[in-house]
């Protein structure tokens, strides 16, 4: 029998490796996803983790890259390949390197000779109890043990600080499991309790390091999903292993989530099915009164999943529904069933229709302006899951158990929405996206553009540059490519220099009936020739295109110039590779082109407004603070 005849993910991966992993990177991910045993995951990692294989995957265009360094107090040979495989399954090609056996301290103390040039983004330091107890002369002397435990977290913090200095990256520490033999050598329960008490306090101190140090993540090993912790006794003795393959696999999965989060790959949106997913039964057949949610099992299982979804939503994960149902009855069930945990407001969109679900998911992604690879699809129906995996392989599709009692945990484990640290923006994100879909729906429902613009009830507010908005103003100049009329990107220093010479910078904020869009535009005004004002540049976020906001802004500038007795307002447009569609902006705003021959050759067009007749301001935008806050130059 030759390799080619055998079936199974590992032989197929080997065949793919020979053909070149880049020929079918999607298949690489799918094959690894089929693996259930830690030893197979390790084998897969060794197959796809070579430099050549990594290059093939990244050059395929569908893989991201990361670099991970491993340090430990025991033999962890299987761990790096497991992480490589788990990350490959997630579309990330990881370069890994491990320090030698029990070199975790020495490697960092000596300036990282083994790991330094890897420049890791993530540094995993996996410790077992020998890291703590080997420094205790007599394991039965509980006072010694207590002292060692009490000082260990501080020692580890110092190590993490040094590690960050030499290696950089996010440091991943762990709570240290206490091995069975360390407990069992004490004959009395009082002694074991004292040992465990000191040990738990130490682990609690280690966990607290995550709160104090922004670049430290602590994995609580007590929470890992593994049937065993300690290595097989023979492997402890033969190979110096401390942890079982199952433990290492569970830790590898945790590290995979950290590495993804560190790359900013957290998934953003959960798309949920209704019938037999968010509630038991089929609402179209059973009626709103007949669906099962809340109360005793199985209703409790559906409530559990709803509760999880709601809590993810409260932390910035966008929630939407895609269900094969009539929209009226779906909405009725969601809004009126007394046992619903999720409220209608928790959902940015409810797609109840008879279209293929991949169409709904793709359309939602477009409306929310996120990638389909940021979507998670939750559906009890294996056929729907299969269709989604086939049509949109980049969508995360958690495998669901047959019984609803396991739904919530399955989704929690597979969703991949993990973040290193939750920010205020994350919490507010759902509101922002809800507003975005609201605008899209309003546009679809309006029969003409002007009606839509009026219905939006936009409010524009200008503000001078100040301490609070300066970072965002610099960011707008730096990041804006399309509505960027001269390509000039003012940095903080240049802004200070220009304002020192009498120039002015302003920002604009836009809100509408769906919420606040935040600071969406910035402009630079410079003193021009003969008492004229010169617009140095205007930049505006693409989020608010096609609403005539730019006309309200420049109109306010013209009115302010008139009010302060300026002789004219001049402006220019410099073509870049991204701003072509705004080449006609100044003429539309009532400016006359005065490009001279010198300007024409370098592609800069000059414009002039004599202020005789400032253009009308767009009627659908209420300007709450406008020309009156723009100072004389």
């Amino acid at each position: 029998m030759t390799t080619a005849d055998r079936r199974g993910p590992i032989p197929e991966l080997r065949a793919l490796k020979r053909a070149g992993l880049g020929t079918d990177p999607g298949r690489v991910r799918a094959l690894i996803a089929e693996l259930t045993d830690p030893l197979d995951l390790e084998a897969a990692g060794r197959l796809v983790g070579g430099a050549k294989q990594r290059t093939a995957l990244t050059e395929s265009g569908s893989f991201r890259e990361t670099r991970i360094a491993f340090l430990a107090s025991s033999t962890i040979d299987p761990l790096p390949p497991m992480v490589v495989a788990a990350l490959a399954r997630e579309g990330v090609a990881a370069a890994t390197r491990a320090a030698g056996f029990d070199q975790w301290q020495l490697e960092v103390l000596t300036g990282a000779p083994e790991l330094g040039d890897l420049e890791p983004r993530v540094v995993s330091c996996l410790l077992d109890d020998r890291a703590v107890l080997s420094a205790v002369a007599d394991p039965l002397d509980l006072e010694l043990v207590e002292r060692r435990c009490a000082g260990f977290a501080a020692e580890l913090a110092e190590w993490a600080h040094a590690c960050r200095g030499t290696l950089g990256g996010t440091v991943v520490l762990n709570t240290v499991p206490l091995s069975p033999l360390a407990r069992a050598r004490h004959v009395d329960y009082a002694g074991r309790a004292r040992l465990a008490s000191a040990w738990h306090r130490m682990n609690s101190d280690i966990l607290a390091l995550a709160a104090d140090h922004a670049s430290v993540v602590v994995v609580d090993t007590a929470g890992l999903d593994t049937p065993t912790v300690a290595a097989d006794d023979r492997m402890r003795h033969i190979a110096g292993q401390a942890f079982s393959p199952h433990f290492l696999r569970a830790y590898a999965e945790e590290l995979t989530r950290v590495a993804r989060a560190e790359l900013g790959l957290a998934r953003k949106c959960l798309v949920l099915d209704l019938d037999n997913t968010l509630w038991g039964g089929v609402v179209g057949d059973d009626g709103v009164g007949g669906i099962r949610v809340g109360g005793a099992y199985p209703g409790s299982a559906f409530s559990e999943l709803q509760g999880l979804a709601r809590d993810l939503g409260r932390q910035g994960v966008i929630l939407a529904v895609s269900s094969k149902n009539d929209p009226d009855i779906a909405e009725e069930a969601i809004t009126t069933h007394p046992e619903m945990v999720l409220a209608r407001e928790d959902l940015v969109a409810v797609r109840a229709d008879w279209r293929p679900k991949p169409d709904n998911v793709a359309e939602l992604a477009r409306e929310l302006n996120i990638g389909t690879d940021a979507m998670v699809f939750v559906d009890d129906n294996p056929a729907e899951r299969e269709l989604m995996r086939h049509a949109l392989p980049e969508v995360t599709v958690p495998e669901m158990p047959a019984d609803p009692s396991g739904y919530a945990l399955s989704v929690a484990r597979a969703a991949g929405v993990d973040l290193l640290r939750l920010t205020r923006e994350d919490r507010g994100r759902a509101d922002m996206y809800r507003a975005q879909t609201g605008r899209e729906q309003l546009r679809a429902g309006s029969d003409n553009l002007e009606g839509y613009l009026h219905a939006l009830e936009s409010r524009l507010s200008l503000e001078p540059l100040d301490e609070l908005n300066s970072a965002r103003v610099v960011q707008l100049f730096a990041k804006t490519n399309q509505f960027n009329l001269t390509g000039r990107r003012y940095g903080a220093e240049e802004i200070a220099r220009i304002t020192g010479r009498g120039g002015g910078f302003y920002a604009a904020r836009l809100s509408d009936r769906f919420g606040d869009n935040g600071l969406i535009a910035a402009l630079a005004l410079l003193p021009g020739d003969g008492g004229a004002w010169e617009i140095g540049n205007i930049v505006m976020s693409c989020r608010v295109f096609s609403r005539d906001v730019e006309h309200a802004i420049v109109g306010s500038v013209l009115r302010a110039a008139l009010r302060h007795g300026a002789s004219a307002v001049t402006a220019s447009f410099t073509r870049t590779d991204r701003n072509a569609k705004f080449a006609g902006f100044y003429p539309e705003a009532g400016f006359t082109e005065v490009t001279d021959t010198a300007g024409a050759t370098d592609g800069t067009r000059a414009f002039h407004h004599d202020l005789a007749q400032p253009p009308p301001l767009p009627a659908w935008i209420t300007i709450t603070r406008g020309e009156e806050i723009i100072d004389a130059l």
Partner: protein
Amino acid sequence: MRSEELASEVVADLLDVDEDGLSPDVRLADVEGWDSVNALRVLVYLERALGAELDYDAFERARTLGDMAAVLEPHVSARDGADL
């Protein structure tokens, strides 16, 4: 499955070497990538496949793929029996 097939299959998969070149008289030391770490991987993998703990000393003493297969033999036969 015969013990020789199982041994060559696992060595081929774990070390990613061509299975056709793995005859029973092949010296393990001559297999590309064979080292102490990979030897342990093969051991643990075989034990999982057979659902039994192998004689570590005998496994360590094995010099050829055939020697290794001999270590598996009692467990492979036991399993074949159980399958019937």
